[in-house]
């Protein structure tokens, strides 16, 4: 929320999407939806990015990686998602949004999704592999 306006003011495009939360009560976009509309069509997103270099939209509102929203619904009652599905979900949406440079923050610790450094390093390698191939 701080970084994005700063970077987009320098002319870098940063179209942002979010999914519904699985492992937390509400994701960033769900909080933002209390204040403003977050459901836009493909055309509206293109127009927002053309005008402002950025947007914050709900991926499920358009057909962006549509299988992801359905897989999230299946996982929601258990508040659990495998690491494989998490990587696929994140990277599919980056690819569909036309992202070509991505910085992924992997918080690590006893209460985070990633409990230890070994798992974090493994995930890092997987994110890099998928990103380079896409």
């Amino acid at each position, binding site marked *: 929320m701080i970084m994005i306006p700063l970077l987009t003011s320098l002319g870098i495009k940063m179209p942002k999407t979010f999914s519904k939360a699985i492992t937390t009560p509400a994701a960033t976009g769900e909080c933002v939806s209390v204040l403003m509309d977050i459901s836009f069509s493909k055309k509206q997103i293109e127009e927002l990015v053309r005008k402002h270099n950025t947007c914050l939209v709900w991926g499920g509102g358009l057909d962006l990686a549509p299988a992801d929203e359905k897989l999230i619904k*299946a996982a929601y009652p258990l508040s659990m998602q495998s690491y494989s599905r998490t990587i696929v979900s994140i990277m599919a949406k980056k690819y569909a949004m036309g992202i070509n440079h991505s910085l992924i923050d992997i918080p690590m610790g006893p209460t985070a999704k990633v409990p230890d450094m070994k798992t974090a390093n493994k995930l890092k390698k997987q994110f890099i592999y998928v990103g380079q191939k896409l």
Partner: protein
Amino acid sequence: MNPKKTQTSPKQVYLPVRQAFHVRTRLIDIQEGDSFTALLNEQEARDHGINSMDKISLIYEGEEIVVDADLSHSYIKRGEVGILKDVVQKYKIEAGKMVAVAFTSNSSLSVEALKKALKGVKLNEKETFSIMKDIATNRFTDTLTTYYSALGFFYPATDHELYIMAKAMAQTGEMLHFPGVVADKHCM
């Protein structure tokens, strides 16, 4: 063989025809939240081999929409299809429009691929794409989608599998393209 027993009048044999039929849309002010449903007249549906909770395909202004069928004896008349609010909102459906309705199901390739995956066999790009497409287009039931979702806990994917899954998940939906540097920062 007794010839009398084999001669059956066509009127006495119930043979549901699984062909497309045309009905008019009626908008139903009910929102289910997480599933797509359409209501058909019970007898008309059975005439076409459609039962409750079958997957049906609606062709609305050239676009195919796959929904779950619910049946009504009297609320929906022959020649009508009741479209619930979730479908109306997503596909901007108007009342009184003609739609073609037909029974549909998931592709046999996707089901066979899911069976293979459940046995721990690695899937190729085509098989992964068929599963993602059937999930994306609502052809997979919730049960099949849940089986696929849970696979990751039992058989961690290889790097290459992650790549083909991400690619298939993206390519079975809309893709956006912007010129120049398009950056992103994501927190897991």
